[in-house]
């Protein structure tokens, strides 16, 4: 059984070792970019089927952001929607034989979480100013500053580990069952993986929204308690 935590480079691009998740991510980027470019090439006021699906996606993302943040979703739409789409496609890329989801490796999840962290800080500073954003760490009093700083780090870690553990465990369990039982037995587990992957993509996106919303607007409580309204 392979070590799920280590990565072997497939090839080297100059001094840079290129690993499988990077290649898969590039493929996903290429597919998503081409699909988006082709799908949005001819948009009309009377939408076809594909355009209806795209508009449904965009309006759903918008409504989620609006519900969570009570704000105009326009500045956050691209980031949240892209993260959701990428995590969803990456989780589901396990369906293609021979491809391991990039999110089953810690680096990809860490990269996504870092992007979210950076976006949180950037949106917070943009929304409140540098002083205003830093002042949010002193709420409700200056005693909470270490706790708030630690919370920033731990919730980013929990974001990383949640996605990584779910996807990786799915892949891992499927691999174990496959090595034990053979051909058709892992299929229910793979179906469960699909559900888990979709739910995890949704949770990742919602948590990112909550973090950014907390940084931008009124400071929210801990992320986990902010899941009161989940219409979808």
């Amino acid at each position, binding site marked *: 059984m392979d070590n799920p935590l280590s990565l072997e480079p497939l090839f080297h691009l100059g001094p840079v070792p290129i690993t499988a998740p990077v290649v898969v991510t590039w493929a996903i980027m290429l597919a998503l970019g081409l699909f988006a470019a082709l799908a949005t090439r001819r948009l009309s006021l009377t939408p076809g089927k594909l355009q209806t699906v795209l508009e449904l996606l965009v309006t759903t993302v918008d409504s989620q952001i609006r519900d969570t943040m009570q704000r105009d979703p326009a500045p956050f739409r691209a980031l949240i929607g892209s993260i959701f789409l990428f995590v969803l496609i990456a989780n589901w890329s396990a369906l293609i034989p021979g491809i391991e989801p990039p999110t089953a490796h810690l680096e990809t999840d860490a990269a996504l979480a870092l992007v979210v962290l950076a976006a949180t800080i950037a949106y917070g500073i943009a929304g409140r100013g540098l002083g205003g954003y830093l002042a949010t760490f002193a709420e409700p009093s200056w005693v909470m500053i270490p706790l708030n700083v630690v919370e920033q780090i731990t919730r980013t870690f929990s974001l990383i580990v949640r996605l990584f553990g779910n996807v*990786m465990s799915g892949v891992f369990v499927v691999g174990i069952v496959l090595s034990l039982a053979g051909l058709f037995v892992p299929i229910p587990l793979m179906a469960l993986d699909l559900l888990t992957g979709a739910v995890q993509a949704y949770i990742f996106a919602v948590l990112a929204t909550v973090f950014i919303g907390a940084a931008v607007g009124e400071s929210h409580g801990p992320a986990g308690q902010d899941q009161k309204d989940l219409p979808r």
Partner: protein
Amino acid sequence: MTANLIEIVSILAAALAVSFGAIGPALAEGRAVAAAMDAIARQPEAAGTLSRTLFVGLAMIETMAIYTLVIALLVLFANPFV
């Protein structure tokens, strides 16, 4: 023997972590599902919203077990003492 002992302890620790780490989320998921069933029985028209929320909540709870699984895997495959 020392290296073997560390490996044995690591495997035991991983098994203990996963087994005990599964207890809490299992109870929590049971309560969550029970509450969701109760709610659906009271309000069948809200079944769609409830089940969606239930799935998300179960995933959040499951994450706790996943954490222990990650720790177990770390212990098994990325043990710094081996």
